């Protein structure tokens, strides 16, 4: 299945907790069910995004890593 990503957010080079804050801001502009792709380089994001998704009810759909870049795909909760 190919995911249709509505919004992309580049948080590369940003330190914790900026990726979370930027994602929370961007999430406001999405409609329920839409997907956002977030790129980050801060390793702390690995744990933070899992916890954030759990706490906010938004779903962490995909999580990959390559060339030192962490990629998260989140779905806005309904």
């Amino acid at each position: 299945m190919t995911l249709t990503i509505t919004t992309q957010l580049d948080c590369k080079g940003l330190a914790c907790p900026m990726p979370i804050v930027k994602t929370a801001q961007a999430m406001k502009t999405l409609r329920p069910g839409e997907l956002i792709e977030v790129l980050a380089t801060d390793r702390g994001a690995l744990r933070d995004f899992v916890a954030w998704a759990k706490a906010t009810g938004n779903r962490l759909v995909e999580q990959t890593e390559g060339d030192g870049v962490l990629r998260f795909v989140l779905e806005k909760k309904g």
Partner: protein
Amino acid sequence: MPARVVVLGGGVGGTLAANLISKELGAEAKVTVVDATGMHLYQPGFLYVALDQANARWLTRDERTLLRKQVDLVVDEAKTIDAAAQTVALARGGTLPYDYLVLATGSRLDRDAVPGYADTHDFYSLDGALRLREALRRFDGGRILLGVAGIPYKCPPAPVEFVLMAEEYLRKRGVRKNSSVTLLSPLNRAFTIESASKLVQPIFDRRGIGLTTFFNVESVDARARTVTSLEGETAEYDLLILVPPHKGAAVVMDSGLGDAGGWIPTDRNTLTHTAHERIFAIGDATDLPISKSGSTAHFEAPIVASRIASFIRGTAPKAAYGGRVMCFLETGGGRATSLRFDYAHPPIPPQPSRLWHWAKWIFNRAYWVTVPQGRVG
């Protein structure tokens, strides 16, 4: 003719950099500091003023008295910088030409960015700290919330310090029993730095301080006395204290030298502007992913001073910034811990003790005769 070095900003970083460049180069350089007020503010003191532990008079000094006599002080606002012409235009007219420019322009508070901010308090300016002090003196019980309304902000440990110290303050005033103190944290822990968070959490638990996680403040409803997060949560308050959103200086933004937030794109080691080799940036003004604190500016200033001295003398600059920062963190009860770290090494804070509390106290007292003159490394 001596080389012209212009320093914008008379805070910790600007003052120290100007003094060090002047000391190192003597007659080889003419150093000029431009500062809008001519008054130096010791910002770490705001926290103590708000909590009625310090007198506001202690926090300000005439900038002139902190600068070497060979350093010129221009009390005026820098309006724009022309990086191609190497000049700075001043608000009252006139321009200052430079060979090297140090941007120590700090950060500005952007309270208007939060709807409903007027109903809140903060300790991020002297006026704010004095207003909060009055509100706390009148406070006779209820819910105190402390939230973060924008990142990055100055002094990352300050929200944690504030709730710990406020809880103690309420106990001393005898109103703790009918009060609650809660930190609204942008993350899933009390503090960005994990090791410090682990140290602080048991203290929160022991003293009954609340922690609400993933709460990035978006707006305040003064009538309903509620604060709402970007995540969609709402919390009720009786006294709301916010860390206001911060942005870079107007002169940086108006001159096209900053990013969208007004922070200066800065090389993490050389501290030069990434697009202009004769422009350096230190302290809050940079876009570096490290603490916005006086300590950061304090450790960066000697690097910039040394590199500028090398350029002026035509030698290869060697000094490089490794991301060194050192902060104290008050935990209340006359105890504190310390956070020392750099780009490569996260901090390992010691257990809170009286030693670090006194170290912070002595540092605060001795600040005026030590830091601006470069007497502590």
